[in-house]
C-alpha cells in the first residue's frame, strides 16, 4: 500500500488501532529513538488557480517522532499535538520499510478501509442534502 494511503487511513480512521499496534508489537522490533515526539511546524505550500503559481498559506502544528533500526528510519508526523499517534506512526513506518509485521498491518488497514468507505458515504450524503435542486424550484 502507498504510504500516502496508509498514513491517511491511520490518521483519519485508526488512531486507536495505530497506538494499539505499537503497544502490542514494539518489543518485537529493535529500534533506537532518534528524536522523541516533539511539536514543530510544517509550512504549507499551495498552488493558486489564477496564475497557476505557488505560495505559502501558513504553517500547521505537527508532532514528529523519528526512530531507526541501523540505517532504516521510521518517521511519524501528524497534525496537532499528538505524541502517542506520532510515536505509533514512526513505528509503523519503520515496520513497512523493514517489511516486518506486514500481515498484521494489512489486516488492520483492511478494516480501516471499510470504516473509511462507510464514513465517506454517509458524510457525502449528509453534505449533498444541501445541494440545490433547480428543477424543483421551477415547478
Amino acid at each position: 500500500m502507498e504510504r500516502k494511503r496508509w498514513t491517511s487511513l491511520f490518521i483519519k480512521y485508526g488512531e486507536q488501532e495505530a497506538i494499539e499496534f505499537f503497544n502490542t508489537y514494539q518489543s518485537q522490533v529493535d529500534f533506537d529513538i532518534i528524536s522523541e515526539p516533539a511539536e514543530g511546524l510544517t509550512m504549507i505550500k499551495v498552488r493558486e488557480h489564477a496564475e497557476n503559481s505557488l505560495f505559502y498559506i501558513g504553517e500547521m502544528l505537527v508532532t514528529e517522532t523519528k526512530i531507526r533500526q541501523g540505517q532504516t528510519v521510521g518517521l511519524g508526523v501528524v497534525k496537532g499535538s499528538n505524541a502517542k499517534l506520532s510515536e505509533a506512526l514512526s513505528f509503523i513506518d519503520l515496520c513497512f520499510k523493514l517489511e516486518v509485521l506486514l500481515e498484521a498491518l494489512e489486516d488492520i488497514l483492511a478494516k480501516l478501509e471499510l470504516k473509511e468507505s462507510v464514513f465517506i458515504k454517509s458524510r457525502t450524503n449528509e453534505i449533498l442534502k444541501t445541494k440545490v435542486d433547480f428543477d424543483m424550484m421551477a415547478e
Partner: protein
Amino acid sequence: MGYVAVKGGTKAIQASVRMYKDKQHAAGYEIEVEHIKANMNQLINQIMSEASLYDRDLAALSILQAEGNMEEAVFLLRAHRSTLPRLHYSTVTNTRDMFVERRVSASFKDIPGGQILGASPDFTHRLLDDDQSFAGNKTAEAYTEIPHTHALDALPKVIDYLEQEGLFSKKPEDDREPDDITKQSIEFPSSRSERLQSLTRGQTGAVTSLGYAEIRGYGYSSHPNIGEVRVGQQPVHIDPFDTGDAYYIGDIELTEVEAFMPADEDDMDDLGNTEKTFKIGYGLTFGQNETKAIAMSVLDYSLEHPVGDAATSDDEFVLLHIDSVESTGFISHLKLPHYVTFQSVLDRVRQTKGEHGQ
C-alpha cells in the same frame, strides 16, 4: 533640564497583571478550552487565518487567554509559532484534492457537481435568538442515498467550465519556489507569492475594507463575479526524503475563492485576433473565512492589475497595513511611555519659541 533615565513601576505592573488575571476568572463562570473549541468555530477560523498558524487547540487557548480579544489572540499565536522549529515543507497542496463540504458559484447556475450549500449562516434570519441550543438540534432522518456524479474529493472547478467555454485560458504551471515573508521581509515591488501570503494572513476587517474600497470606487470600481467559493477539508502531505512516496499528515479546512473580473484590456490570441477574456482574482484562507477570501481575491486582482494611482493598487499600501500584529502593535505602542522622545520634542518647540522671542 537634562534627561534622566528612570526605572520604576515594578510593583504597580505586578499588581496590574494580577488585577487583569483576577478579572478573567469570575467564580462559577470559568470556561475550558474545550468549550471554545466546541462553540466558537468561526472565531477560531479567523484567528488561525490571521496568525497563519493552523491548530484549533492552540487557537482556542489563545482566545481564552486573550479574553476573546482578537488582536491579542493572534499576537499570542504568532509569538508561540516563533518558539517552534519548522520541521517540514508540504508538497504542493492542490485544492482540486479538497474534500468539498460547501461549494457555490454566483456566476453559473448549472455547474458540474452542483451548488452545494453546506453549513453557512447565509440563509439564516438575522434575528437574535435567546434559545441557542447547539446540542439537541439533530433529528434522526431516514437514510436515503442521494445520487451524485462527482465524488466530493474530486469536484471539478468552475474555472474548468469557464475554460471549456473558451472564456479563460489556464496558465502553464509555474513551479518557481515561492518567497516566504516569514523569513525575508517584503521588498517592493513585491512578488506574487509575497502578496498572496501577506493577504491570506491579513486582518479580516482590514482585508475586507480595502477589498470593498477597490470595487466600490477606488480602482477596479466594478462588480466582480464569484466563479466559485469552496470550503472543505484539504489533505496535506510531506515528502521529507524526496522519494516521491509522500506521508499524509492531516486535513486542514480551507476556503477558496475564484472571482471573475471582466478584463478591460484585450487579449491577443495566436492568430493575432483580439478578444475579451476574463481575469481571475484568487483568494485562499485557513478555515471558513468566506468574506475575507472574497476580499482577498479582489485585492489579488487589484495588485496584479493596478489602476491609476488608486491606493488599493499600491502593494506597499495594502500589504504593509493589513497585518494584524504590525498595525495593532504600532498603534497600541503609542500609549507606552515616550517621556524622553516627547521631552525632546518639547525642547525643540521651546527653543524655537525662544529664538523667535529674541
